């Protein structure tokens, strides 16, 4: 099955500065892919390349099977795009904007558009320029969902929105998602925004992909492990590569195992510490993200 989005060694430079560096990932069809990373990590640049708003300096990307650099009007008929940076035609009303957009999309669904407008409680005959930030974002979402796109790309859609509006938008999207086969790529620097939404996750940092895999696999793979030692031990040199943020204090060793497997982790602990008892706790996406981010920043242990 062709992935909805595929990036292969994607690179983009702004002058001498490399914003995206050899980035590779796939957004499987019918998945909701959370594209995560701190501000300035290269998320927006990547999305702009996918949308053919920027040309890559190297590598290539494909969206719905179309090379991104050839993405034209026909391809865009199947792609919804919402970005915090996008400028809507503010001198139009919502009805006028819908009337403008409808003929552009063969699959435009007037009733779905009306449903979404009602659900988001948007005024139809008021100029978009008078809308609040949240209303503008909802308008952009409506204009990107009403034609039932095969792929929805959201670039920091919830940035700066209050939680109520954010939840409204997410619920609205999920409602539509339940009705059809579509893929979503949503970028965010705030994990809590997408934690309950995504089934695939990619972490990007300083233009490089740190991890990209299904959320379930990620959460299964990552565990916070606390090892209680019978007696103080010296710090192993080096720490196993899969152990992130490993630190030792007296008789307690704490680390994040990025390759957690109950038996294998227990065996590894016993190899390093003679008499030890390990307890592994599941981690939230936020905790995994923080562990990965710190690992990238410090390049190893916190000890």
């Amino acid at each position: 099955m062709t992935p909805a989005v595929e990036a292969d060694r994607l690179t983009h430079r702004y002058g001498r500065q490399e914003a995206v560096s050899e980035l590779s990932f796939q957004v499987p069809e019918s998945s909701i892919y959370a594209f995560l990373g701190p501000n300035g990590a290269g998320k927006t640049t990547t999305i702009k390349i996918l949308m053919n708003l920027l040309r890559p300096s190297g590598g290539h990307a494909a969206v719905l099977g179309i090379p991104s650099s050839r993405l034209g009007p026909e391809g865009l008929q199947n792609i919804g795009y919402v970005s915090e940076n996008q400028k809507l035609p503010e001198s139009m009303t919502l009805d006028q904007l819908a009337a403008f957009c409808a003929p552009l999309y063969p699959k435009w669904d007037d009733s779905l558009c009306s449903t979404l407008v009602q659900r988001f409680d948007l005024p139809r005959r008021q100029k978009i320029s008078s809308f609040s930030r949240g209303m503008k974002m909802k308008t952009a979402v409506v204009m990107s969902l009403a034609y039932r796109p095969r792929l929805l790309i959201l670039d920091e859609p919830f940035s700066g929105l209050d939680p109520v509006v954010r939840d409204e938008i997410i619920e609205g999207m999920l409602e539509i998602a339940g009705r059809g086969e579509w893929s979503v790529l949503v970028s965010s620097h705030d994990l809590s925004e997408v934690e309950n939404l995504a089934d695939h996750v990619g972490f990007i940092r300083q233009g490089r992909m740190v991890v990209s895999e299904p959320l379930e696999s990620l959460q299964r793979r990552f565990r916070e492990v606390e090892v209680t030692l019978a007696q103080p031990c010296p710090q192993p040199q080096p720490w196993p590569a899969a152990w992130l943020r490993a630190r030792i204090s007296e008789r307690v060793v704490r680390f994040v195992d990025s390759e957690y497997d109950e038996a294998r982790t227990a065996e590894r602990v016993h190899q390093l510490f003679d008499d030890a008892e390990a307890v592994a706790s599941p981690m939230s996406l936020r905790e995994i993200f923080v562990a990965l981010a710190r690992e990238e920043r410090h390049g190893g242990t916190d000890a």
Partner: protein
Amino acid sequence: MRQALLIFKKDLRCLWPELIVLYAVLTVHTAYALRDSLEREEINQALNLPFVFLLTVLIVIGRLVQQDSLLGTRAFWQTRPIHPGSLLMAKVLSLACLLAAAFLSACAVLLTFGLSPDQFLTGLLDALLPQLNLITVSVLLAAVTPNLPTYVAAWLGMQIAMLLTQDLGNFVARIPRVTDYTREFVWQVSVLFPGLLLVAHQYWTRRTRWTLAGSIIAFFGVVFTPSLWPWELGEVFLPNVSREVQARLRGAAPDGAFLALRESGGEMLIRAAPEILRPLPGSDFTVGMAGELQVDASTRASLSGPSVRIDAGGILDALPGFHWAGGRSTTAPPLQMETAGPAAFDDLVEKPGSLRGEIHGRVYGYRLAGAVRVEAGVRLDKGWATALVRSVSREGPQVKVVLRSRQIQVGRQDREFPRVVLANSARKEVVAGTSQTRSSSTYSGGLVSAFRRVAQDRVLLFPAEENEGGLLLDDRWLAEAELVFLEPVQKGWFETKIHISDFRTRDITFDPKARSAWVN
């Protein structure tokens, strides 16, 4: 096309306030254009309507382009299934509507002036070219600027740049043997085509940075490269009808006439056309001069500075029937002379130096295009020109004749108007020329360039205004006279090489007797 219409409708919806203002200004402009000229001038001065109209047009163009911005990656249309060609087509449609409204307004004004469409349509269409240029350049600037204030600033910057560079590289001035109209046409087309290509490139690729670089390169390419071309540009359009004669410049004339040389015995090599050698009464020439004045080192120091002007115009002003087309002077040695201004060598008095130059111009012959007897109420029409004998009345031993003529100039047409003269062929005498020109119905504006004259209705008054606009003539002379249209026919061009060495400028005057050297 469907998509283009959709975007066009969207633009109308979004820009209706600006469009209402634009059409309101246009309506007011048109309405005042129909009024009496004096009142109109007063209103124009008070409200500066042409400027307001131009400003409004520029703002509408800026808003229209930036509505669907090409710059950056934030515009709504860029992520929607909109073909760039449709977007460009929509913008072209909007601009065409803009032009059409202005065009119709101009037509309305000119019709009200009493002109028929066949008189003004070609002229009006001709006036479209510079306006298309204005629009193209404005679209380019709007496309590479992020917002309206930046666009307006860029536009002003471009105007200043054009002003600063216009004398540096207007290559069309180097195309010999073409009319001014043709030069203007070549210049306009040279700017328009690269401009249109750049606009198309912008919309097709959204590579605005490249377009900006392309604009600058194209500008310099159009303006400078041909200017730096070391060889002569093609000599086209007009045959050279001149032949060489030699004139020796005589000593200074005591009556202070214009140009001669003392002691130097300077020589001029003149290539002149037969029409110049034997100029007809009232014949007309357009002349220019290019040359270089070399001065010695001590003089050079005293010449430097902005106040120094070298003006070779005096050489030719001494010849009757020659008129300078206007031009410029130079201020720093070595002094490249190209044209002449009103002053003559005053700043060079007592300066030694040498002068090399070249005079070039067009040559016209005249042919009879119509003649009527001079009787009250008789009228002579030729194209856009009309002559009318208002009255013929006896005043003592003489007859007073009041004549009026009107010439309508529409657009920038490569057309010479007939000269209206009162001629007595039996006596080979002509009362030629006019003493006054009064613009009675000038209509400026029309399309988007409010500064370009679209139509001018000229009333030419014959001399002798001391006789209340009439001519006092001998009745026997008048009995054999006719009111005549002499239609100028361009015969060719001429050039004159000048090389004068070792002169002192104090004595540069023209000996009227030396004129014989020019004409014999």
